[in-house]
């Protein structure tokens, strides 16, 4: 699969080249790489928010467009993107409203979701009354409210401070263990990718391609001690090596 922006024009940019990736159901996969490596573009291709120039995305044998129309994707972006005229619980209800669920269903489901992200008592607050981490938890609750099978996360913790970030990572793993979703997680933080994922897809830039795929066999379930586990450090080193090799290969290539 490949993606070219501004195809056929002078300012064409080859964002992704010869991408070949298979993700198993229930897997937690991170897309890791420097800015401009096309990791977000790849996520948007999977979510059918943009379409590939060549090749195709298949989700359980269906096209990405079919999967999107079948409401199989829950999206979480770097910005929480809560609608600030809606209260927290009405934000979580938004996808359910669009999908035509009844009021009782919506309210029950919203309660359940807010409980999952531990914000039960904040349903009637407005987004601007919450901290950045809380807002992002609401965004996760909203993404999971309609029980999509795949969770697509585009640097969801990128705007948070380090402490909040680590707490949110634990939270996300706890949620993932409960919901058994397939998660595709874009990040440019090596420890974040290693801590969360069952596999890390390392990408390199110009043109964006996959430099390597690394299995993270750090014992599950991950918890506070994981960050001090020797295997965790080994994997971080392995990912870093892979990133550096990706870079060197780029520099050997023709000037872009």
């Amino acid at each position, binding site marked *: 699969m490949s993606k070219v922006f501004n195809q056929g024009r002078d300012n064409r940019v080859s964002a992704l080249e010869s991408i070949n990736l298979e993700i198993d159901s229930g897997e937690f996969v991170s897309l890791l790489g420097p800015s401009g490596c096309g990791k977000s573009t790849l996520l948007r291709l999977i*979510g059918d*928010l943009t379409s590939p120039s060549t090749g195709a995305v298949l989700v359980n044998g269906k096209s990405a467009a079919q999967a*999107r*129309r*079948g*409401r199989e*994707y*829950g*999206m979480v*972006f770097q*910005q929480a*993107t809560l*609608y*600030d*005229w*809606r209260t927290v619980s009405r934000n979580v209800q*938004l*996808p359910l*409203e*669009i*999908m035509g669920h009844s009021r009782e269903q919506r309210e029950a489901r919203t309660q359940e979701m807010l409980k999952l992200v531990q914000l039960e008592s904040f349903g009637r*607050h*407005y987004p*601007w*009354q919450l901290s950045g981490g809380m807002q992002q938890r609401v965004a996760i609750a909203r993404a999971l409210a*309609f029980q999509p099978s795949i969770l*697509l996360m585009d640097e969801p913790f990128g705007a948070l401070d380090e402490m909040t970030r680590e707490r949110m990572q634990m939270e996300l793993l706890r949620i993932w263990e409960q919901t058994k979703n397939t998660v595709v997680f874009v990040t440019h933080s090596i420890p974040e990718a290693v801590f969360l994922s069952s596999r890390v897809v390392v990408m390199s830039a110009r043109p964006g391609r996959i430099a390597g795929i690394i299995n993270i066999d750090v014992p599950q379930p991950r918890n506070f001690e994981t960050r001090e586990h020797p295997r965790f450090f080994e994997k971080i080193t392995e990912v870093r090596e892979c990133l550096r090799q990706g870079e060197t290969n780029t520099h050997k290539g023709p000037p872009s």
Partner: protein
Amino acid sequence: MTVAQTVELGLDENQRDAQWRLALRRAASFLLILLLLCGVWEGYKALGQATRGKVPFTSLKLPIRPDDKSMPHLWTIGGSLLQPARRGGEDILLVILLKAALFTWREAVMGFVGGSVIGFLLGAIFGRFLLFERSLMPYIVASQTVPLLAIAPMIVIWGGRLNWPAWWSVSIISAYLTFFPVTINTLRGLRSPNLTAVELMRSYAASEMQILLKLRLPAALPYIFTALKVSATASVIGAIVGELPSGIQDGLGRVLLTFSYYYISGPEKLYASIVGAAALGILFAVIVALAERWIVPEGRRLSE
């Protein structure tokens, strides 16, 4: 107050408290400014009379004569409200002004409502179809550069040919002045959601209509209300100007015209009428602002 306390108390109580304090502070600052303006008026008069109309310590003339003809005392203006407007007339000026204001307001409200609806629809159409915006927007802009005074008589004449009640034409003139800010701000507001907010909707496979109703329209409301507040005052001006060529006798336009004819014999009456016309415009804008408070949640209002 710490964040934790705010959360525990529940925001309702705190917010209501803060709102009251804010309202009080606003009322106080409004009165203060009003007093200040009155002080400037009377101070200028007193100073000017002491220096016989000259800028102190110079031989330069003051721009406005400080005598009672050019600048009646504020109590003369106020007092004129309670006296019959004409010798032997029945109604005191206040009653005449109130009646005229009510009449003009009806025209302005019709113009405001009509203009806002048209303005909103144009904005919504432009927001959806770029082609319409590109091709029609220049004319919309041009429509506002044509002086109202040139158009008003034409609308009155056309209305006359169609046998409309005269005040309809006035409302149309008022609408003409009203729709433009609403169109511009509706367009801006509908386009205000960022790409991510729209992509979120796409990821739910939401229809165009759902995106409009659940995202673009609520996002546009603060922008639209900002325009409506401008339009509310503009609609009153439109109605007053529109009354002049239409020969309507019952509105503020005629009252202002009459008292400006008889300025020499009673300047305070013209001043009182001007204050009345301004008050009508302000009152209308305040009503729209109150509607906004009711409809748009607090954290989202643009102009506060």
